[in-house]
């Protein structure tokens, strides 16, 4: 390169030399003067210098421009780098290291692409910033209410485009995005909540939401997320929730009255079923009510309409109800043995109600109040009433025992005789306890009366009076018994006298079997003889015995009448004085007092008063004799036979009415009674089934309480439990039931 330039210079010098030489020649030819020649040469030289200088200036200017350009480029590069947060060092280093070898142009050439590159990077970065900021802005716009968004308009700071700054912005953006999604979720939750509330309340969800912000109705993502909107939404939810609670209470009040009305009027289940979904929400809390439209005004009105319909129905049925309630009151009164005191007042009230003067509901309330009062009173009376019940039962047993003791055929060992025996034994024990029971009861009643300050009334009669009456009755009976004993003694003497005079006579009237028996004196007859004599008695067929009973109906009847009298007296009406000819004897005390061999005499006592005339033939007394003999016979037999013939308690008397069968009497003192008791029960015992040969016996419990609901519809189609529960209705035969 340099040699080339040198060649060029030498060539220029050579050309100049040739020019000068040519000029010398021309000048020589022309004969130019030396001055002219010098002037021309000077001119030439000046012109040449001028040309060189001009060129040099030009080149110099070019270099300066180049330098300026490089400086500019470097400055720009530095600015970009600093803006980008990068170090511009390496460019400088590159240039300094190559300073000597590299010309300005190459330097510029190396810088220019760098600048280009940096510019591009900067542009990209800037775009990133713009993008991030745009997003931030848009989110801010969504989140913030419009008025606050204008103030903080975001601008890009050109001088700081560093990645750090970008990251900062991106963090901001992320935070904002998080905030946005949070709000979206909240918004969605609230909207859902609002929606379900609106559904339950039957409100127009869209309308409510539109009032808060129109954007909420639209589809996803475009919803206004500003705090105020969310707050408004929250307020709306609160309001609607309050409305819901209000309506819920309203509905529950309605349901309560509905249930009351149903209960009052025995509304059929089918009718109730329609409101099942409402009634089941009776005790539900606010958030448990989720069924659509259940709290809508329409629905509430619907339920209210049903309530008012039932109210109307109730009003029309009120009288019926009042009467029903009254019946209920009466039943309760009967059960508690209380006489409703203001009965007439109630009657009047009902009459007034019929004429419309009194509100039926008022009467109903009154009756209910009365029922409550009686129930309350019953509570305090309960203990005594139970005792009274026991006493009554004991009295009944006493009566039964008297009746039983009067039964001439009671020693016949028939089916179920052991049961009657057992009952008699129990009854005797019970009767012995009676006086103590009455005393205890009386003291209880006195305490109660002192406590309450009123008389204890039992079925309209003061209980104490009843008890006292009973005591008097008992004393009279005692007296009577004594008198009879005396009489009997007298009778015995008479008898003995008569026998001594005429000898014993058979009884032709009552029992032909008795003919076979020789008359035996009670005291002295040997047991053996007796048992021999009465053997045929045992073989007497039962119908014959029944006949015997039938022959003497009038005496039986009188006894029965007396018993009824007695019972009536016990019931509290003591107007009638006890008849002096009372024959109801307490066999227990007699039997207990007399030795067993003499018990026959005791038996006789009962028959004694049957005599109409003091000196009528003995025959009318004889029916007792076979019986008397029978006792002993039975006794003996029992003693002998007990082991061979154990009584079978498991045998169920499906067809044995206990009354008809005469039974063997068990003496209080006879130890054999224990043979009847069932064996003690081991942990697992097999019990024979209570069987019957098919077809089952007709003698069956006629009352089946547990089945009453089932049997009540008999005559219509029968239904099983499952069919009832599933509300299954036979389609063809009873379409009416399907309603």
């Amino acid at each position: 390169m340099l040699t080339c330039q040198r060649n060029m210079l030498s060539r220029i010098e050579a050309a100049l030399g040739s020019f000068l030489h040519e000029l010398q020649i021309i000048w020589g030819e022309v004969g130019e003067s030396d001055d002219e020649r010098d002037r021309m040469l000077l001119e030439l030289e000046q012109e040449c210098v001028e040309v060189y200088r001009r060129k040099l200036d030009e080149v110099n200017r070019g270099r300066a421009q180049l330098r300026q350009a490089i400086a500019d480029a470097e400055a720009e590069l530095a600015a970009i780098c600093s803006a980008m947060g990068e170090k511009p060092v390496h460019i400088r280093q590159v240039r300094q290291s190559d300073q000597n070898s590299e010309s300005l142009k190459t330097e510029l050439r190396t810088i220019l692409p760098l600048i280009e590159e940096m510019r591009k990077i900067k542009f990209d970065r800037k775009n990133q910033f713009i993008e991030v900021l745009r997003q931030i802005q848009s989110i801010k716009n969504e989140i913030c209410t419009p008025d606050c968004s204008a103030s903080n308009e975001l601008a890009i700071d050109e001088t700081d485009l560093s990645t750090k700054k970008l990251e900062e912005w991106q963090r901001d953006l992320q935070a904002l995005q998080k905030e946005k999604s949070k709000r979206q979720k909240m918004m969605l939750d609230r909207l859902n909540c609002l929606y379900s509330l609106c559904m339950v309340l039957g409100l127009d969800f869209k309308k409510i939401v539109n009032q808060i912000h129109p954007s909420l109705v639209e589809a996803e993502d475009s919803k206004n997320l500003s705090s105020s909107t969310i707050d408004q939404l929250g307020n709306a939810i609160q309001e609607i929730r309050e409305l819901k609670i209000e309506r819920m209470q309203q509905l529950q009040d309605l349901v309560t009255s509905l249930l009351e009305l149903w209960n009052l009027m025995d509304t059929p289940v089918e009718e109730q079923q329609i409101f099942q979904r409402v009634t089941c929400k009776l005790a539900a809390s606010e958030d448990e009510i989720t069924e659509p439209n259940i709290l809508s005004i329409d629905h509430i009105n619907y339920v209210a309409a049903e309530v008012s319909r039932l109210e109307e129905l109730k009003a029309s049925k009120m009288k019926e109800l009042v009467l029903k309630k009254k019946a209920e009151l009466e039943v309760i009164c009967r059960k508690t043995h209380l006489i409703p005191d203001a009965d007439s007042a109630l009657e009047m009230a009902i009459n007034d109600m019929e004429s419309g003067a009194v509100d039926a509901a008022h009467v109903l309330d009154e009756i209910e109040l009365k029922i409550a009062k009686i129930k309350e009173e019953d509570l305090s009376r309960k203990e005594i009433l139970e005792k009274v019940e026991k006493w009554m039962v004991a009295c009944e047993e006493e009566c039964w025992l008297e009746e039983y003791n009067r039964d001439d055929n009671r020693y016949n060992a028939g089916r179920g005789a052991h049961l009657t025996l057992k009952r008699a034994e129990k009854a005797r024990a019970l009767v012995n306890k009676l006086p103590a029971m009455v005393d205890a009861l009386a003291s209880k009643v006195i305490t109660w009366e002192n406590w309450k300050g009123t008389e204890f009334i039992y079925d309209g009669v003061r209980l104490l009076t009843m008890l006292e009456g009973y005591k008097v009755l008992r004393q009279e009976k005692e007296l009577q018994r004594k008198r009879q004993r005396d009489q009997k003694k007298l009778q015995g003497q008479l008898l003995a006298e008569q026998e001594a005079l005429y000898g014993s006579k058979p009884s032709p009237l009552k029992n032909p079997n008795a003919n076979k028996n020789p008359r035996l004196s009670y005291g002295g007859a040997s047991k053996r003889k007796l048992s021999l004599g009465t053997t045929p008695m045992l073989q007497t067929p039962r119908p014959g015995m029944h006949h015997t009973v039938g022959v003497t109906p009038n005496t039986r009847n009188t006894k029965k009448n007396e018993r009824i009298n007695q019972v009536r007296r016990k019931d509290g009406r003591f107007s009638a004085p006890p008849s002096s000819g009372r024959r109801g004897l307490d066999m227990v005390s007699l039997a207990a007092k007399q030795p067993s061999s003499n018990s026959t005499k005791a038996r006789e006592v009962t028959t004694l008063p049957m005599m109409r005339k003091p000196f009528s033939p003995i025959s009318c007394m004889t029916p007792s004799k076979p019986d008397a003999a029978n006792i002993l016979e039975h006794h003996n037999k029992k003693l002998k036979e007990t082991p061979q013939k154990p009584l079978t308690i498991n045998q169920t008397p499906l067809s044995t009415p206990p009354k008809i069968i005469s039974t063997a009497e068990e003496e209080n003192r006879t130890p054999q009674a224990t043979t009847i008791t069932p064996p003690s029960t081991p942990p697992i015992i097999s019990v024979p089934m209570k069987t019957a040969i098919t077809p089952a016996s007709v003698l069956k419990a006629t009352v089946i309480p547990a089945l009453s609901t089932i049997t009540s519809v008999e005559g219509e189609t029968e239904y099983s439990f499952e069919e009832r529960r599933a509300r299954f209705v036979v389609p063809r035969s009873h379409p009416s039931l399907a309603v």
Partner: protein
Amino acid sequence: MATFGATSTNVNPNRSTEVASPPSDSVSSMSFSPKANYLVATSWDNQVRCWEVMKSGTTVNSVPKASITHDQPVLCSAWKDDGTTVFSGGCDKQVKMWPLSSGGPPVTVAMHDSPVKELAWIPEMNLLVTGSWDKTLRYWDLRQQSPTWVQQLPERCYALTVKYPLMVVGTADRNLIVFNLQNPQSEFKRVVSPLKYQTRCLAAFPDQQGFLVGSIEGRVGVHHLDDAQSSKNFTFKCHRDGNDIYSVNSLNFHPVHHTFATAGSDGAFNFWDKDSKQRLKAMQRCSQPITCSAFNNDGSIYAYAVCYDWSKGAENHNPSTAKTYIYLHQPQDAEVKGKPRTGTTGRK
């Protein structure tokens, strides 16, 4: 409020083992798998549930295994003889086949015009028999859509028992129709129930010589098919408490000893031996009725469901207090082994 027996308020006086997570409404039927100790119960809450019952020594415990749902209350259930599949039918008028062992979804295999009250799998014929309140009995081959045979009944089907070749169907109006399954298309015999009240449950004798029938009036009839054996027929009372009479809800023969158990609305269950006419054991009354019961395949477990059976109508049902329990009782030998007084059974 229902008061049962007035005396017992204890729901589990016999200290039986309670089955875990029982149905939420009354149990309508129960059956044990013929192969293993799996118990299936259907209930009025539309569910069919399955438990595995595990015995360790003298204790049993149960683990709920699986369940399916019907659209309506379920009334009856039965296992296939291989113990792989359960059939269940009810108020949705269809029978679902539930392949329990394969875990597949239930498939509808039978349809009626009214709720299906009873069903049974007859392994000897490879047929399913279903009885419904639509007064028909239908036989189903599981591979076909339509029934292989429809048997008209005089009334709605209330009870059914199968002991091949004997099948007895109890319907309303106290009809009992006896079928010889060797000729299922004709009635073998039709008798009026020896009991005077509605038929509630049936159980065929293990020797197929007759059947037991229980009625709503607390009575069980023992009925022999052969007229020559009619002298051995008798009825007996049970599930009564004084004057209160309760329905007999379930009759189950013990699979080994051939004694039987009765369960009733009074909440008690008893074990009986019909041959010696003895009650072997009377269990304590629960506070609620026993609606159904079942023995497992070897008779070592007796499952019974204590819940309201609608015997006192809807008015005595309080859904908020009504609870359903399934208990497992392990009968001792003395309770279920007949007394040695034999010689009258198994004669043709």
